[in-house]
């Protein structure tokens, strides 16, 4: 595979950069675009379609690109990776989630995936603030198997929490999933997920929940509990909810973080990025401070030891990390560039999906989820 990457702050700039990168005879057959919702996403689709290229696109909450020409971490712009992939080793498809639950959406996508390749690796990004990322993952796994290789996340909208999008060369969907599938007999794909968030406060019980909607915590309206404990104003929600997720304790003493992506003020309910089961024992959680950068560095170094070669790196980093680390976010992304010095493209997400080393895929919040693609 061959890769070229660039960033821009407008559709016009995008088109120019594309043509410039193609002028040496480079013929991409696929593209990855992570873009701000402020940019005309339809314009990008139309342009890419004319080029006869397949597009894997998602709106973002800030995007970044590291390559030999420099480091870009922006908000309101776009980043693009032009890919020249082996014919027959990839495919793309978009699935609408309208009128169906996230699990069913996952199953539909999964059925297409297993038909496409015998040994598939899935890249999936979903849009919609009410999408249950965990159910989407479970739906895909239900068809493709628990051990399927899968990375991705939930699209963002620059922390407006209005509408997020996925897009291909021919469509734009505020409530769907875009999938790129690669043939694992041609590519080697590995990744890590690391968070660093810690539990704060006493244990609480989820007393009423349905899927990813929580109505009561310790028998009190969930929204009231959240606002009271964090002492936040109504207008701070849901944005602050991404930074202070609930930590769900599992029986084996492990835990999973679930960020608030939306609120139902009428029902005083919190809508999470993934399932929060009835009866679950939860606590609030927070990043312990800037030391999470150090723990990310360690994980990246460890991953590099096992996976020193790559053609392209994609990073799905939670927008809450950006909020928590501010300008120092670059320090943990820098570590990736320093290790591999290969193109790195990514965006700040509302949720991440990934296999941690060889473990089965899960849906996360607050993580730094890095994936490496290498042609065999």
């Amino acid at each position, binding site marked *: 595979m061959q890769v070229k990457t660039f960033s821009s702050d407008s559709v016009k700039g995008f088109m120019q950069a594309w043509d410039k990168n193609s002028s040496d005879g480079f013929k991409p057959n696929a593209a990855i675009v992570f873009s701000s919702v402020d940019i005309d996403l339809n314009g990008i689709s139309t342009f890419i379609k004319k080029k006869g290229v397949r597009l894997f696109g998602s709106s973002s909450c800030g995007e970044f690109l590291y390559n030999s020409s420099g480091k870009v971490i922006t908000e309101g712009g776009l980043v693009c990776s032009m890919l020249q992939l082996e014919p027959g080793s990839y495919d793309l498809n978009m699935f609408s989630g309208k009128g169906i639950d996230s699990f069913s959406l996952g199953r539909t996508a999964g059925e297409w995936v297993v038909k496409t390749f015998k040994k598939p690796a899935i890249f999936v990004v979903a849009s919609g603030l009410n999408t249950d990322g965990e159910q989407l993952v479970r739906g895909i796994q239900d068809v493709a198997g628990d051990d399927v290789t899968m990375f991705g996340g939930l699209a963002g909208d620059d922390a407006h929490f209005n509408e997020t999008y996925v897009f291909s060369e021919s469509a734009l969907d505020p409530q769907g999933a875009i999938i790129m599938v690669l043939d694992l007999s041609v590519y080697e794909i590995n990744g890590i997920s690391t968070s660093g968030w810690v539990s*704060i*406060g006493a244990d609480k019980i989820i007393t009423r929940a349905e899927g990813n909607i929580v109505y009561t915590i310790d028998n009190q309206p969930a929204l009231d509990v959240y606002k009271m*404990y964090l*002492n936040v104003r109504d207008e701070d929600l849901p944005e602050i909810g991404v930074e202070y997720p609930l930590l769900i304790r599992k029986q084996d003493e492990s835990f999973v973080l679930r960020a608030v992506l939306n609120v139902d003020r009428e029902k005083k309910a919190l809508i999470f990025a993934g399932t929060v089961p009835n009866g679950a024992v939860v606590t609030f959680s927070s990043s312990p401070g800037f030391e999470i950068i150090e723990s990310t560095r360690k994980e990246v170094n460890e991953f590099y030891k096992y996976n020193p070669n790559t053609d392209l790196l994609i990073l799905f980093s939670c927008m809450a990390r950006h909020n928590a680390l*501010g*300008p*120092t976010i670059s320090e943990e992304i820098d570590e990736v560039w320093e290790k591999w010095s290969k193109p790195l493209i990514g965006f700040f997400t509302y949720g991440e999906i990934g296999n941690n080393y060889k473990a089965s895929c899960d849906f996360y919040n607050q993580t730094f989820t890095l994936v490496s693609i290498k042609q065999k």
Partner: protein
Amino acid sequence: MPKNLQYIIDELRNLRNPEEFLAARDRILEELTRVDSDFEKLNFKYERSNKEKNILSSLLTRTSADLKKVSDNLKIRAEELSTILITIPAYVYFKDVNLNYILVNQSYAELTGLPVDKITGRSLLEIFPHYKSTGYLETEQKVISLGKENYNIEEEIEFNGQTRWVNTNLAPIRNPAGHIIGLIGISWDITERKHYESELKRAKELAEAGTMAKNEFIASISHEFRTPMNGILGLSEILKNTPLDESQADLLKGIVSSAENLLVLVNDLLDFSAIEAGKLELDFHPFILDRVLEDVFQMLNMKAREKFLDFSVLISEDVPKHLIGDSQRLRQIIINLAGNAVKFTEKGGIEIHIHLLKSTVDRIMLRFEVIDTGIGIPQEAKESLFKVFSRVKQNKSKLIVGSGLSICKKLTDLLSGEIGVESEKGKGSTFWFTLPFDLTGIKIQPKEKTGEAEFKLYTGKRVLVAEDNLINQKIVSFQLKRIGFEVDLVDNGQLALEKYDENCYDIVILDIQMPVMDGYEVAKAIRRKEAITRNHIPVIALTANAMKGDKELYLAAGMDGYVSKPFTPETLLSAIQQAEIIASRSRI
């Protein structure tokens, strides 16, 4: 002052001439950019800290309120638990894995006579220096090492000069990670209970000994009855064969009938004590159901006719004829029930119905009903009817007494069947029972009634009979002579052996209990002699009654069969025939 700023100041100070300025400007600008970036990061960290401070302090305030609530609840809970521990009417203690006390309750402390804080951290032997271990500490150690509860450990302990019995339950204590960190023991003083238990045990033993003595008495007295009964019946049989006028024959009939009734009663008593002692032997063999019912019919029809009662037997067509079971006990049950029916019915009649309840390939369940039009049984008497020696009060003057029903109940139980009664006072009763039988594939040839012709089978054959009772001697010899035997009689075993040596016999019949030498000894001696001659003469035991285990004794002594007294000519004959077959096999 930040290092970067110091650097810029130094650069500017060191500027000596305009040529150096351009190069210095680039270095200074680069440094200023770095300062700007550092400043931006610092500024962010500052703002971030401010924002986080608000959220975290709120979270911490709320959390500390939560924790206060939790700790208050825990305190209340702890107080409740401590109250329970103190007031629970039992000795409670907790020990660590080294079996040292961690905590004991008030009752336990009182038991030791020490304050609670003097007990914790110490071991059992430090608290009770005079404690004599009977494996108790080992049991505690096992609870810790195996992680398993151990309940109802009873132990006699001594403290304050008093002996007390305690019952203890032990259970391991685990920490949340599942590791055993000690044990809990709860003990109760059961001295009183132990006292009652031993009294109860003694009373039970006494009662059992009494019952056993009673059963033995009944068994032995019934046994004693049989010898004179044998005499009466045997001599009556002899008398019947002498010329008698009509009234004498009638009187004899009365004697025989009374003696038979008495024999039934004695047999019932014997059976009863045999069942009680678990000594009743069941004999499962192929038989023809019709034959059993014919016997019953012949035995009871006469009596029914005397009372002008109808008597009939109805067998459903689907009931198989050839069965495997204890026909003797079946006959006994039917005769008992039907005999009662005849006895207590004054008008109408008695019907015996038999139908098939269930059947599989090799097993069936039959239901027998004895239906009478008699006096009926009041509701309140039904329950106790099958109990031992029950009585049904008919009126002030008359009591109906019987052991028969309780024997029927015990026999049906033994044979895996059920028994019951449906009755309405004044309208008659239906006694029923169910019994399982195995099916036989083989058809049994119905045995012809032994005719006069067969009686002469043994003409010219010699039999040696050893029997010390003179009356029995007469009866046996009469019956043997009737079937053609030439009979040699002796009074004891010693004489029998002498006769055996002098003459040549076709068969030997030995009473078991005899003076000088008993039947077993004689049989053994005969078999020893035969070891040289390689012969095997049929030897039959004459016995007062066959109990479970007796058969093995006869066989061990080398006998080929036995006859229980009193016996009929038919049973004697069949025992002789059987013994001949067995003996002939032994010769091969």
